[in-house]
């Protein structure tokens, strides 16, 4: 199985762990990832807050590169995934926008490149049974709060990912790994996303409520798939502690890190040392699979 893999800018900075664990898991499961040569930034929040044509053109330039490769694109960062799919939606449904985008990029783009998230590839292309049979270790009843955030599920008519109010893709993967996916109400609440630098107060407020709710539901760790969710939930726990003396101390792991551990991939290949809250309590729990 071969895909064009768009790492996104955060893969080389704040979300190196997301990138490393996705690549390691893909290799272990026989998924072939090829980076489009010269890929560029999708524009993220800054572009869509600034100019609609710019916000569609920056992703379109990358989608065109992938179209030439004749492959589906895996965009693992939820923000890149969202921007790629929004660009597809814009050029497919708005002929005037398609024209403006093609003028900006220098080539006509029809909006047909399929954009996937690694979770979708694992569930739809590999299949949960095949993922399960590849596992060598088990999460051994680790209680996991699966957190999806905003950008994968909304707007639903654009991303078409799972159910927008009660998604279960991550839960299915965690259950397959032998963990207990918790029923909790904050699966698709917002962590504050791109406000981390500008309105840190808001991000602390929102992450406190999400991490606090996960803890109240009995979570021993939170599984995420978006780099902004990860850094906000992980990094801001120290600010929450400073502000309210509440020490949540919940490790925030990418689902690909959990999966990598269960595939018996070594910790250094999964970027586990990059987490702010130590994942030691999670690693301790993982044991050799009964069937393995």
């Amino acid at each position: 199985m071969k895909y064009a893999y768009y790492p996104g800018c955060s893969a080389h900075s704040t979300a190196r762990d997301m990138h490393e664990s996705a690549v390691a898991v893909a290799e272990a499961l026989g998924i072939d990832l090829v980076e489009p040569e010269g890929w560029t930034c999708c524009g993220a929040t800054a572009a869509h807050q600034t100019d609609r044509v710019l916000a569609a053109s920056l992703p379109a330039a990358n989608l065109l590169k992938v179209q030439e490769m004749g492959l589906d694109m895996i965009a693992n960062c939820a923000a890149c995934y969202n921007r790629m799919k929004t660009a597809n939606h814009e050029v497919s449904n708005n002929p005037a926008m398609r024209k403006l985008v093609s003028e900006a990029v220098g080539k006509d783009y029809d909006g047909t490149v399929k954009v996937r998230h690694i979770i979708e590839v694992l569930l739809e292309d590999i299949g949960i049974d095949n993922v399960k049979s590849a596992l060598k270790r088990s999460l051994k009843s680790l209680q996991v709060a699966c957190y999806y955030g905003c950008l994968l599920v909304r707007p639903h008519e654009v991303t078409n990912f799972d159910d927008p109010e009660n998604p279960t893709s991550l839960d299915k993967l965690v259950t397959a790994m032998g963990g207990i996916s918790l029923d909790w109400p904050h699966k698709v609440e917002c962590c504050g996303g791109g406000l981390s630098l500008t309105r840190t107060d808001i991000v602390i407020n929102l992450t406190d409520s999400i991490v606090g709710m996960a803890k109240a539901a009995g979570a021993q760790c939170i599984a995420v798939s978006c780099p902004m969710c990860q850094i906000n939930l992980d990094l801001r726990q120290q600010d929450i502690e400073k502000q309210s003396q509440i020490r949540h101390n919940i490790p925030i792991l990418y689902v690909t890190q959990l999966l990598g551990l269960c595939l018996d991939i070594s910790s250094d290949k999964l970027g586990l040392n990059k987490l702010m809250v130590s994942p030691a309590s999670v690693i301790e729990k993982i044991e050799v699979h009964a069937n393995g």
Partner: protein
Amino acid sequence: MRKRMTITIKKRGKEVEGLIRRVEEISGVDLDVCYQCKKCTSGCPVAKLTKSPPSEIMRRLHLGIGDELLNSDIIWACVSCETCSARCPMGIEVASVMDALRILAVEKKAEKQEGNMPLLNRAFLSTVRLFGRTYDIAMIAAYKIGTLKLMNDTEKFPTMLKKRKIALLPPTGADRKTTRRIFKKTKQNKANKA
């Protein structure tokens, strides 16, 4: 074409054109269908932290408000989580309305809001224009100098550098030619429109 209801408001004896049509033009959204059910506000994670929740912004647009709306704190406190758009029973892209208001706020030089998001956006996009990808250190430095919030989060920097969660060197290997072209063309396009 459907006939639209137009509200004009007289201020100090003068008729003032409201923002609503510009907002509709930029966002591509039909604002007339909002019937104030307030579902957007109910689901908004920042409504409780701001002075004007999204449903109020929608109503004030209906009532013909002008540029003073662009000073509302929610425009820059909005997290673009799209919960409002997802839950609107009339399918209004409320989040796109917020984007349109941001674009207008910058264009019309509205009051600076806490956090100065436009500065961060400019810093972000400048690194993309220069390197083809984001360069966090340069972006954060430009933003911190501009806001004089030099000490915020500095205690986290050593750990993040050690963990390589912030890259020291600028990104390489991106197709900068295409990115530059996109920035140039969108700028021209905007200038032609104005």
